[in-house]
Every structure is written in structure tokens, then in C-alpha cells.
């Protein structure tokens, strides 16, 4: 490994190229819709709020962009009594 590193030390350019290719593929696809995640979050929360009372600070939203698929993860903490009602 260290032998390889000796010859390949700091070959960071290919990493830069790959990261850019993945990122820009997304940014181009979502051009002008950069607020998509935010809008989805709002609408999903509104849909849930119709049925269960939820608090804003109990909601965690994560977005992970992958090469093939992206995931929008919405984690909502629902209190016991909200379901009991």
C-alpha cells in the first residue's frame, strides 16, 4: 500500500473529476428546482399533520445524492398519545 502511495501520492484530480460529474448531473437535472427537497418536505409534513399532530422540531430531513439514485429521508418522531387518540 505504501509502495503504491509513493507513486500515487496526492492523485486527487480523478476524485475531483468524479465528484463534479456526479454533482453536476444532479444540479443540471434540478436546475431551477433547487427548492425541491424543501417543497417535498413541506407537502409531506402537511399531509401527515392532517392526521397526526406533529411538532416541527421532531422532524429530521436528510438528502443523499447518489450516482444512480437519490434518497430523501424524512424521520418523524410521533408521540404515543398522538397515535392513541
Amino acid at each position: 500500500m505504501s509502495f503504491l502511495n509513493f507513486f500515487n501520492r496526492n492523485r486527487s484530480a480523478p476524485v475531483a473529476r468524479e465528484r463534479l460529474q456526479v454533482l453536476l448531473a444532479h444540479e443540471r437535472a434540478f436546475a431551477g428546482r433547487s427548492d425541491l427537497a424543501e417543497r417535498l418536505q413541506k407537502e409531506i409534513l402537511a399531509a401527515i399533520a392532517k392526521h397526526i399532530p406533529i411538532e416541527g422540531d421532531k422532524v429530521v430531513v436528510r438528502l443523499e445524492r447518489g450516482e444512480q439514485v437519490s434518497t430523501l429521508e424524512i424521520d418523524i418522531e410521533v408521540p404515543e398519545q398522538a397515535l392513541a387518540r
Partner: protein
Amino acid sequence: MSKVVVVTSGKGGVGKTTSSAALGAALAQAGQSVVVVDFDVGLRNLDLVMGAERRVVFDLVNVVQGDAKLPQALIRDKRLETLWLLPASQTRDKEALTEDGVEKVMDGLRARFDWIICDSPAGIEKGATLAMRFADQAVVVTNPEVSSVRDSDRIIGLLDSKTRRAEGGEKLEKQLLLTRYDPARAARGEMMKVEDVLEILAIPLLGIVSESADVLTASNLGFPVTLHNPASPAARAYADAARRLMGEEVTVTTPKEKKAGLFGRLFGKRVAA
């Protein structure tokens, strides 16, 4: 027919102003009449890079707001007869520029010059969008570095949607000017290569300007680099880029490492291009 060229990048510090001055001077050196317009209202610097900072009386904002006539604000370069500068204002806010006002100024400049080089401010705010608004073609200045490439991609998107030409369904030619390129680091895999950036941004190449001490020296002295040291690699790269802007076919040579290896030194060969 005069041409309006916007020099833009999104990211700051990549060399827009240096490149605007150098390309403008190179076009003038080739006999064209040129005006370079500073759109960076509030942070003007083109006057300083072109060595005219002590001659600014009126500026772009004065003309847009009707406080001065266009000829009063234009400054002629002391070294090149056909090179002119329209400086930006230093004090007023960016809201001082209006689309109608800028359009009138552009029309006035089109009547007088072959080339109108618009030096865009960084960012994607009003100043940058107005600088590109009336452009016929664009020079996208990019460093081989991730944030610069990403911002250039954003700017290319804006050029394709927010310019008059794009809105009218006309073609707006965009060309890449790769600056601060370091061939040695690219060869070692520490910096993205020319081909990497070209593949990602997918626009034609206008030129490659290597990282160079001549560029800093020239701006220290208030000279466009093509005037200060025409034989330097940076000046030659800009002069070639200017010829390509004029439609000449000039092949782009990718800068090679300057330092010769031990073998090269022993045998007196230079690897440099």
C-alpha cells in the same frame, strides 16, 4: 458588426478582470476597436488593472442614470489608441444599474466599437446577470478546481436561459478560458487536466493560461499582460485566444511542464512548450 462579449465565471478570483483586460488589449493590438466595460459596481478594479485608476471621472452608473454622456465616461488607453475603458462606479449600490439603462449604453457602445468586452462581477446577482444580458457570446473563465468548475456550470445554465439571445431562441456561443493552469501538477494528478474540465463543462475551448508570475507583475504595473510582456506564455495564450474570438483557426497548445527532468538537463533538451 460589433460583438458584445461577456467575461464571466460565477466564482470570484479566477481571473475575470485580468482576462478582460488582456483579451481587450490583445484585440486592440490586432487592430480592432475595443471597449472594456467594468460591471462590478461597488468594487471596480478594471481601471486599476488597466492602469487608468487616476483618470476616472464618470462611470457606468453615471451614464445609466443620465448624469453623464457616454463619451464623457469613456477613457482611452494611453498605450493603445483603439482600446477604451468604461469604468464601474465605486460608491453606489448595485441597484443603480437598470436593464433599460444598460441596454441603452450597450447600443451606444455598439455604434462606436468592434468589440464590447463586459467584465462581469462574481456571483449570480443583478450585476452578473446584467453583464451577460445583452451578450452575443461568452467567455467562461474557469480554474481547474472543483468550486470554480461547479460555478461555471451554473453560469453556463444562466447564459442559456437568462440572456436576451437565449430568450429569443438565438444561439449564444460560449467558450472556456482555463486560467491558473499548472501543467506540472496536472501531470502528477494533483490538478484536473484540461480534458477533465472540458468533458465536464462541455463547451469549446478558447484558451489555456498557465499560472504565471507575468500576470501578477503586469497587474502590479497597471498593464494588460499582452502589453507588458507580449512574449510571455500568458500573453501569447491571451493573444491566441483573441485571434480565436476573431474567428481565426488557431490550434490550442496545452502547456507542458517547464522544468526539464534530469535526462533533459543532461542532454540540453527543453521539455517546455
